[in-house]
């Protein structure tokens, strides 16, 4: 029971922790204060509690696939918000005197959406054991351990990013933002396939023998870049398309904020 809870909570916390560490590091490079993180955590907690509370009626929507649709909306929303962050990062980097209000709000929105989805699942899991006193202490302890491991991984990534040479630090964060965004969009697409809103097809390939999704590395890569051992064609298209959309947003932001625009072409 204890180990189960560690794994379940860790998996949910990991995605949000990685997202936050990349944002916190980026915000440092962009000389922005990190107070937004507190607001995002609070807003995310409120969102998660609300979603968790209404999960039953939400699940019944759209002939029983409301959960998939709602999660997909949250994921696509976080993706769009991440793409907007990618647009604003170079603009802010090129002009550190500009107001950071927009980029800060977008980072907070992305984290809020991520925590709402993952937090709701944690609440449903933990509350399921609320009345089972035999298990509850084990589940509670396991959850705390899982959350702490997830948090530690986030802190580790944060300091790894800060330890990079200045030249590489921001580009690395931007690259991670591309991959996190693409992972979110392909997961959302998979949810719509599961709901039968997007036509299903067989997997394009299967790398589960090389790297299992169940392994620790697999789990970490799933959280970080949306690793999927046997993705369908539409998921692959969604992934690649998302990387291109975020890259377009990034370069649009980069070139629109540079005075010497002609030289770049």
């Amino acid at each position, binding site marked *: 029971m204890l180990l189960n809870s560690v794994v379940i909570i860790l998996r949910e916390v990991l995605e949000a922790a990685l997202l936050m560490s990349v944002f916190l590091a980026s915000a440092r490079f962009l000389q922005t204060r990190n107070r937004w993180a507190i607001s995002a955590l609070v807003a995310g907690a409120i969102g998660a509690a609300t979603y968790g509370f209404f999960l039953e009626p939400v699940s019944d929507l759209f002939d029983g*696939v409301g*959960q998939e649709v709602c999660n997909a909306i949250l994921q696509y929303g976080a993706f769009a918000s991440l793409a907007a962050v990618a647009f604003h990062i170079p603009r802010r980097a090129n002009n550190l005197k500009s107001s950071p209000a927009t980029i800060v709000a977008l980072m907070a929105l992305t984290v809020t959406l991520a925590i709402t989805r993952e937090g709701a*699942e944690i609440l*449903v899991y933990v509350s*399921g054991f609320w009345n089972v006193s035999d298990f509850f202490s084990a589940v509670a302890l396991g959850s705390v351990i899982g959350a702490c491991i997830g948090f530690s991984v986030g802190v580790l990534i944060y300091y790894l990013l800060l330890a990079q040479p200045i030249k590489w630090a921001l580009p690395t964060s931007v690259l991670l933002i591309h991959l996190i965004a693409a992972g979110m969009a392909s997961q959302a697409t998979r949810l719509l396939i599961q709901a039968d809103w997007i036509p*299903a*097809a067989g997997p394009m390939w299967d790398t*589960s023998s090389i790297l299992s999704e169940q392994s620790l590395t697999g789990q970490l890569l799933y959280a970080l870049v949306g690793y*999927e051992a*046997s993705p369908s064609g539409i998921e692959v298209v969604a992934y690649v398309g998302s990387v291109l959309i975020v890259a377009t947003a990034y370069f649009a932001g980069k070139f629109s904020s540079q005075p010497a625009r002609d030289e770049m072409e």
Partner: protein
Amino acid sequence: MKQIMRIGKSRLSVIAFLILLVAPSYASTPEFEIEIRNHLFLPDTLTIPAGVKVKLVIYNRDATPEEFESYELNREKVILGGRKAIVFIGPLAPGEYPFFGEFNPQTALGTILVVAEADAAK
């Protein structure tokens, strides 16, 4: 006015055509039921045909929530206590696809057995 009518009609026929295109696939989606009872899947082995999309209806008869999860099927869905959930899977190649209940992974274990149509008829 006439032109507008014509556009309206052609659009209608396009919509009607699309509905006809989609409708049969919905009608022919085979449905299978699984129950969760005392943190066990019943049946724990479900045989489904290869190459077609299948609708799984999972009833959670326990009071506690469960998460239907499968790495092989790329599926995960929370099912609250006393509720049912719908999960579409496939089309799949013949083979074994394990699934489990993430909230009770020691006991809630099952397998989707995908067989070719010819084998299923035997």
